[in-house]
């Protein structure tokens, strides 16, 4: 954790407050630089957003509906490329090599192979539990059975689902409960060891108990993977994220340590939002 004094020097500008001089334990994993995003219709939904993503930390994106937080998340794995002529302006650099994920020289498929995503609604394939987790490996052409088996078990263990499903790996994934399905989706994304894991409101379709499981899991997982998470739930953001970015109408209003954002917001709009006055 950084001290408040170092933050004070950088947070003078609410926009793109990047805690300077990351300490050795806080390697920069990715950096969003002046990212604007336009839908094919010409709608601009992100206004020059800049934001660092630190290794093995959870970065939460919060903000009222329509503020662009999911749009921003989906830029990370180029999901927007699937639909029409959407346009990116700016860059997302992936470290250590500093490659621009939005550049023309990188294929969106490569981006998606390196950055995993878990969606709002659990979306397991109507195949067996095993096949769901193994799918990412199969896509990459992995044939070796023992390796696949090993990875599937590893992923399910890390997603906290192994004990529940180890005797029924051949059952249909859709026969699991909603919370289990979402953990399966996390396992599916983990199986290929993504460099960053994107979570798009992963608990919004789940009951409180399953939500609790997922939140514990997120805290566990950051040991292995960098996480960027969109959430509607302020408590969730304060409980499981290290950094929080508050977005409003396509602008990044404030970015800081989560503890700072939730106890001592600098911007009026952040304060109104986290105290529940709008959103």
């Amino acid at each position, binding site marked *: 954790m950084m001290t408040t004094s170092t933050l004070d020097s950088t947070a003078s500008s609410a926009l793109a407050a990047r805690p300077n001089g990351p300490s050795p334990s806080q390697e920069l994993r990715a950096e969003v630089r002046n990212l604007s995003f336009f839908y094919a219709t010409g709608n601009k939904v992100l206004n020059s957003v800049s934001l660092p993503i630190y290794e093995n930390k959870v970065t939460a994106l919060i903000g009222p509906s329509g503020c662009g937080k999911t749009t921003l998340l989906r830029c990370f794995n180029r*999901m927007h490329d*699937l639909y029409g002529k959407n346009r990116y302006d700016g860059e997302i650099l992936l470290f250590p090599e500093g490659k621009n994920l939005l550049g023309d020289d990188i294929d969106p498929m490569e981006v*998606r192979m390196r950055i995993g995503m878990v969606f709002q609604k659990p979306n397991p394939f109507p195949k067996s539990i095993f096949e769901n987790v193994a799918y990412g490996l199969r896509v990459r052409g992995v044939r070796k059975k023992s390796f696949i088996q090993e990875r599937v078990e590893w992923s399910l263990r890390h997603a906290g689902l192994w004990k529940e499903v180890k005797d029924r790996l051949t059952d249909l994934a859709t026969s699991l409960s909603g919370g289990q399905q979402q953990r399966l989706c996390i396992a599916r994304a983990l199986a290929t060891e993504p460099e960053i894991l994107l979570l798009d409101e992963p608990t919004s379709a789940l009951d409180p108990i399953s939500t609790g499981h997922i939140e514990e899991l997120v805290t566990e997982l950051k040991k292995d993977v960098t996480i960027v998470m969109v959430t509607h739930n302020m408590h969730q953001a304060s409980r499981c994220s290290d950094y929080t970015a508050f977005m409003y109408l396509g602008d990044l209003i404030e970015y800081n340590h989560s503890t700072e954002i939730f106890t001592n917001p600098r911007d009026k709009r952040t304060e109104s939002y986290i105290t529940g006055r709008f959103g």
Partner: protein
Amino acid sequence: MADAEQTNDPTKSKVGESILTDLVLSSIRVRKWIDFAFMVVGLLALLFSLITLLALILDLVRTGGPRVSWDFFTSFPSRKAMKAGILSAWVGSLCVMAVTSLCAIPLGIAAGLYLEEYSKKNWITTFIELNIVNLAGVPSITFGLMALGIFVYGLGMGQSILTAGLTLGLLVLPIVIVTTREAIRSVPNSIREASFALGSSKWQMVRHHILPYSSGGILTGVIISLSRAIGETAPLITIGALTFIAFLPPSPVNETFPFVNFQWLTEPFTVLPIQMFNWVSRPEKEFHVNAAATGLILLMMTLVMNGIAIYIRYRFRRKLKW
């Protein structure tokens, strides 16, 4: 706000009291009676159509039923009604259906897949989609006329099994395309995104997810279109199907190299509905019995095919949950 509510209150309670007047109660009676009347009308309409159909089928069974026997399936048509059978007709139907399937199924599925998953959504694709739906409603004899011009004369395929199969293939192609698209559309977008998010290519997504999950719907469409093709008569008469065939097309397999031949494709043919049509137009009563028996067999075939389609749909629906 509070003020307005208070001034409104007296009128509100008045309306509240007046709700259960005799007028309202009688209006309930009237509306319930209309409900009942419509139920009766609907039931009568249903019974009328069911009873008419049932009477037709029963008549067919009563007339043609006794004529259906093993000999009926293994005999060629004959001048003597009691000796006549449908051997050449059902073999012909089978051969034509084989060509139709080979032509319509791959083309239809590939076209539907392209339209649904690959094509960009612009006015050209909208125009094409609209025309495919229209094509499904074009009278079948028009396809016959077109096939006569293109396949029989233009390409010189003659009045052969190949011509007939291709004609029926074109006829049911729009049905296959439309049902394929519907089946594909029923796969939720979240599945596509899940697959892409794991780094799959478009073809991997289609091959591993779209096709397997929509295969139930696609198969249903294929079977229903084939069961339509098997009963088609008009286009085949137009391209010149023969009504009296007393021989079978040569076997597609033989004992000498290369063991398969496609000579059967060029043979003249007849099919079940044409055989039936031919017998109906004869003056002798006995031939009408043959026609009824053929009709019964056709009916059974379509029934069985549709039954299989329904079963497949049921099986797949039960397995697939999103």
